[in-house]
């Protein structure tokens, strides 16, 4: 399968690979996927408590090039967004930006799930209620 140039670029020069201190109260961690399925994403956000803005985002992904690119792109988009705006990131935006073929849409779904999981982790740590999301359709 031929990958789009954007996927190749993110794969070769991934943005924001790394680990934030998950013990910190203002860091939210989302770990989604499963090794059996061939992809696992861990996405982390660091939030400025005063402003509610995401100041840093990091990822590590086990998966194909599209999964790596989806998570790399997600971290780029998260940085500088408010937590509320981050919730609006839709997997189809990722599909569009990276020109993912239909067989790789699940990679973008995983990235969206990772964002939501990270935000919920942050919310729970800070005494906020967990947001219930509808089950993702494409899995």
């Amino acid at each position, binding site marked *: 399968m031929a*990958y789009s140039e954007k996927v*190749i670029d993110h*794969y070769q020069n*991934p943005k924001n*690979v790394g*680990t934030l201190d998950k013990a910190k109260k203002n860091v939210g961690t989302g*770990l*989604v*996927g*499963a*090794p*059996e*399925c*061939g*992809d*696992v*994403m*861990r996405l982390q956000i660091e939030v400025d408590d005063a402003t509610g803005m995401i100041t840093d985002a990091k990822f*590590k*992904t*086990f*998966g*194909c*090039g*599209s*999964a*790596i690119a989806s998570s790399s792109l997600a971290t780029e988009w998260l940085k500088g967004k408010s937590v509320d705006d981050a919730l609006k990131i839709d997997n189809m935006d990722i599909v569009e930006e990276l020109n993912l073929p*239909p*067989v*790789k*849409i*699940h990679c973008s779904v*995983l990235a969206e*799930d990772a964002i939501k999981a990270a935000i919920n982790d942050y919310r729970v740590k800070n005494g906020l209620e967990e947001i219930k999301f509808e089950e993702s359709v*494409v*899995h």
Partner: protein
Amino acid sequence: MLKLPIYLDNNATTPMDPRVLETMTPFFLEHFGNAASRNHPFGWEAEEAVDYAREQVAKLINADPKEIIFTSGATEGDNLAIKGVFEMYASKGNHIITATTEHKAVLDTCKHIEKSGGEVTYLQVKKDGLIDLKELEAAIKPTTILIAIMYANNEIGTVMPIKEISTIARKHGVLLFTDGTQAVGKIPVDVNKDGIDLMAFSAHKMYGPKGVGALYVRRKNPRVKVTAQMDGGGHERGMRSGTLNVPGIVGFGKACELCMLDMEEDTKRISILRDKLETELMKLEEAYINGSTEHRLPHVTNISFKHVEGEGLLMGFNKNIALSSGSACTSASLEPSYVLKALGLGDDLAHSSLRFGLGRFTTEEQIDYTIKAISETVLKLREMSPLWEMYKEGIDLSTIEWAAH
């Protein structure tokens, strides 16, 4: 100078040997006749060329030329052998024994047989990819007519104990069919010493052209017959109708002759390169060889690099190195290789595998480049892998509850 890309997917197909092409060319142009045309020189030339090729093919596997049925390839051979025996021996029984690691051309044909009223036993393989001979013998019933076990596996290169299998088959009066696609031309295959009754193989896996193959059908002790699966002019002793692919067959013959001549030297040289590749890659942490290393084709290795996903790994170098992976990360099939899973590998390791198929034209320079490129990519992706980080922190990944996906 190293020329890129490097081809290391010789289990999928091999490049044609230029010496093969040379013998084929005249049969496209001046000697274009139909081998079945009995009344003029064009037909006579074509028939003579086909006869010669039949001898070359037969010689490679120590068969009689009359036992060679030309086909379009091994998939057709697999179909003709299994369906042909099932129909021809219907009065004797309807039970076939095969293994879970067979090629899809065998497994799907067996599924077809089941739909047509046949019964199929699928033997599990051991961790090393070999079948258990005791289990095989225990699976034989009075209604068993055929054992279909491949000579060597296309994904892991494991070589089955065909001689021992045929001894069991003979003892119980059951026919033995083997898919010899990966083995013929690469290691010595002797239908008489091995006790094979039917064997399918293909030209393009042994430096010959695509679209041509053969089915060996034993004529003596016992005399084996198959029901034709294609109706028509009654070519190939009535077992496979259709105008013969004369240039393809000529090339196939030459390819067999070359394999016979070069086998010893090729094997020696290629296995040294394979061993070097394997030894160097196994220096990476958490790398595992899949399948038996003792009973294995000399040019194949299949290695899993834990905590790195195969398709992602391939992407790191597949512009420059042609390889295949046991991982298929598509929404249509999240399932990794069924062969690796049959060995008892966890899905994580199956997703992390690469298959290397070296060949006659593989050079040491190419292997050196490959070792470096793959080692670097594995290390880079592990730095990016959450599983690797957890592993390094001493977290047991099997204790984590992964979200259903």
